[in-house]
């Protein structure tokens, strides 16, 4: 018995500590950095306090009568068991309260759903398990997946302490960049299963659904880096497809855009030239880590019964055309997706070569970007 009491007191004091330095503990919604996020925050606090007040009233009455109307105090039971007036009152009262809550909520909702006359558009496509960002007007397109340090540390028994990793699970290789003070309209869809794009500071969460386009908008008021996560169960690595939005001043944003276009040129050039084996293997290892390792595992051993191994796989060690075909067009009805649209010729050539000659395989041959282009 008193053991339990000790345990309880221990826990209670733990809770006390909790609320003490609550600052670092994050116990409430984030106010965010858009007008809407502030509005939503205010709504949240409004309904919260309404509930607190009602709670205090209801629980207050209960506690009062539990204290005073107990047999041990010799309180005799009254016999009343009906009051139409009371029933009517406590039917009307909540209705009024709820009406009072509904009006501002409805107003906010209508604002949120109105994505008309936006300044720019970004198309966001969910993949298992990364995001693709496309800027139609600017002609920019890139993938964004969880950055390596987090990936390494999040492997089971990795031995790496998550606390030692900066922005553990909330960091990506290529963040999406937007200008501040502009009404940015996001279009969402998915390549495989449902995902949901959510950055708390931008307030609104929207599902990315295959075959349909959803939209949502945000007008970020202050420059900064804002982090979020996929918020719809999308399989094994649902917990590992973070989102990072960097809001920049217009000038910096423009600089970033031209930068992107330049590097796009480079990758294009890379796909023109022929590569030597070492270059292919080196590049292939990178691509494998970011695109294949999630399922087929870093060592290529796969997960028996779920994801086939690369090491010694008949496809990989077999005829090269079929191998390329699998990588480029995927396998329907399985989690193996088509990478033709996700990777450029050089990367596909590299990763194919790497799979055939790394990870314990030694087929010996190699693939050039030109071969891949030929298959497109």
């Amino acid at each position, binding site marked *: 018995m008193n053991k339990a009491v000790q345990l309880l007191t221990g826990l209670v004091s733990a809770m006390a500590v909790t609320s003490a330095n609550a600052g670092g503990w994050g116990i409430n919604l984030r106010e965010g950095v858009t007008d809407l996020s502030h509005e939503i925050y205010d709504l949240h606090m409004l309904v919260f306090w309404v509930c607190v007040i009602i709670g205090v009233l209801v629980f207050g009455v209960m506690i009062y009568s*539990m204290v005073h109307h107990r047999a041990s105090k010799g309180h005799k039971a009254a016999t009343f068991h009906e009051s139409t007036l009371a029933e009517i009152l406590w039917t009307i009262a909540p209705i009024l309260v709820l009406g009072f809550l509904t009006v501002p909520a409805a107003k906010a*909702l209508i604002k949120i759903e109105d994505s008309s006359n936006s300044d720019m558009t970004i198309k966001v496509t969910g993949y298992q398990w990364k995001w693709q960002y496309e800027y139609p007007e600017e002609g920019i397109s890139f993938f964004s997946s969880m950055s390596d340090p987090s990936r390494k540390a999040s492997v089971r028994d990795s031995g790496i302490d998550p606390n030692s990793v900066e922005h553990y699970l909330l960091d990506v290789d290529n963040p999406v960049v937007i200008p501040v003070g502009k009404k940015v309209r996001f279009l969402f869809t998915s390549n495989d*299963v449902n995902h949901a794009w959510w950055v708390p500071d931008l307030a609104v969460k929207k599902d990315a*659904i295959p075959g349909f386009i959803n939209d949502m908008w945000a007008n970020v008021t202050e420059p900064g880096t804002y982090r979020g996560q996929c918020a719809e*169960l999308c399989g094994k690595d649902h917990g590992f497809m973070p989102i990072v939005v960097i809001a920049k001043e217009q000038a910096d944003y423009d600089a970033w855009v031209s930068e992107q276009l330049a590097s796009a040129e480079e990758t294009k050039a890379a796909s023109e030239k022929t590569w030597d084996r070492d270059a292919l293997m080196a590049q292939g290892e990178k691509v494998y880590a970011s695109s294949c390792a999630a399922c087929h595992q870093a060592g290529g051993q796969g997960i028996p019964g779920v994801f086939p191994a690369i090491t010694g796989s008949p496809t990989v060690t077999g005829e090269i055309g079929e191998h390329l075909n699998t990588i480029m067009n995927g396998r329907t009805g399985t989690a193996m997706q088509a990478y033709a649209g996700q990777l450029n010729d050089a990367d596909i050539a590299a990763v194919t070569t790497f799979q055939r000659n790394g990870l314990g395989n030694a087929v010996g041959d190699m693939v050039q970007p030109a071969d891949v282009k030929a298959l497109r």
Partner: protein
Amino acid sequence: MDTHAAEAHDDHHGPAKGLMRWIRTTNHKDIGTLYLWFSLLMFLIGGVMALIIRAELFQPGLQFIDPQFFNSMTTMHALIMIFAALMPAFVGLANWMLPIMIGAPDMALPRMNNWSFWILPFAVTMLLSTLFVEGGAPAGGWTMYPPLVLQTGAAFPMLIFSIHLLGISSIMGSINIIATIMNLRAPGMSYMKMPMFVWTWFITAFLLIATMPVLAGAVTMLLTDKYFATSFFNAAGGGDPVMFQHIFWFFGHPEVYILILPAFGIVSQIIPTFARKPLFGYSSMVYATASIAFLSFIVWAHHMFTVGMPVAGELFFMVATMLIAVPTGVKVFNWVSTMWRGSMTFETPMLFAIGFVFMFTIGGFSGVMMAMTPVDFQYHDTYFIVAHFHYVLVPGAIFSVMAAVYYWLPKWTGNMYDEKLGKFHFWMSTVFVNILFFPQHFVGLAGMPRRIPDYSVQFTNFNMISTIGAFGFGLSQLLFVYIVIKAARGGAKATDQVWDGAEGLEWTLSSPPPYHSFSTQPVVK
């Protein structure tokens, strides 16, 4: 030959002996007992899965299990707890108490009653065995959204068919309950004289026969989409993944009230007994229950605010959802008024009932917060939701089941349970359940998504607390198991009345009641 004489004669035989008694029984008490033990076992198994989840979430980083298996645990935990633990618990209570409370000889369709139980073990075995098949157990969440769920391996058809079986079981159970209540009430037991538990189950049964077939249809479409090339949930074929969500939640939301209405009934039985004062506003309770049931059919899309519905739809579902707070409020206020100026004692059942009112209300409040569509854009699929529904399900529904067990155990077994231990069990459970679930509000608001095996480090502290609470709560439940078994095996004899404030036909019978309660019906004035 007059068979009735023969039957009537048979009626006075006790139960058959041995295992066959339980397999062949058509007796509502035996079947109720089967349901209740089954449900307890499943609660432990589902709980162990929950503990695996909590253990993995104790710290950031993956310590014990891989992400895929974590998702399987989340999925199976929910399916087991809802379909194999909580629903059977309520059906078990219904089997035991409804006939007695309305003065019926037994359930209306005793053979079918036997079947509705005996499908369950088969269904659940099928579901649990998915843990051992190639590709692992279902991992798409208990909501089974396509396209993700279609990536399930060999477990997929097992999942679908076990749900079909569970559905058949609860449909037969509900039909039986409806027939019993409509046809077997004792003379003079008019509808508006029925005990509240009977009323809430009556309405729940209708919810069940209306929604279970819907779930069956939904999973059938999943099956054909995966194996028979249909395109219900595939945009390329003209379907829509979101259509599944609509159908699922058309079942799913009434389902959550299926999980709470009987609880309302139980609490409405217990509070008057220990307040020694008749239930306040009986008829308004009945109407409130009915309106909750009605509203539950027009609020489903509040689970889908982020799928990109037309604004008009979002507004409608927001308002409809908030309205449910009104009849539910009426119930809460009625319970409080029943306690008001009563002469209360606080035996274990009363403690659990009061705990229910407090903590269910807290869960209800977070529900109303989430009903505010714009704010739900932030809450959705975070631990705030997890906190919400565990408050209504664990210190809500599960507490009500425990209250009911403590309340009626002396009647069932003829022995009093150990009051000291019972109270201790209540306090342990209450303290730990809050340590377990309250911090989840915080991490949820702070931005921790649900259904993730690993989280970024700023969520660590509250997750640790929550996990400690989980193990504490879990162990407290072993205490419950011990108390029940102890009472079942012996102890201080219970009177027929058991609780001096108790009213109703069940207390006119001996404790334990005869194998056949009312072979000839009592007359209710």
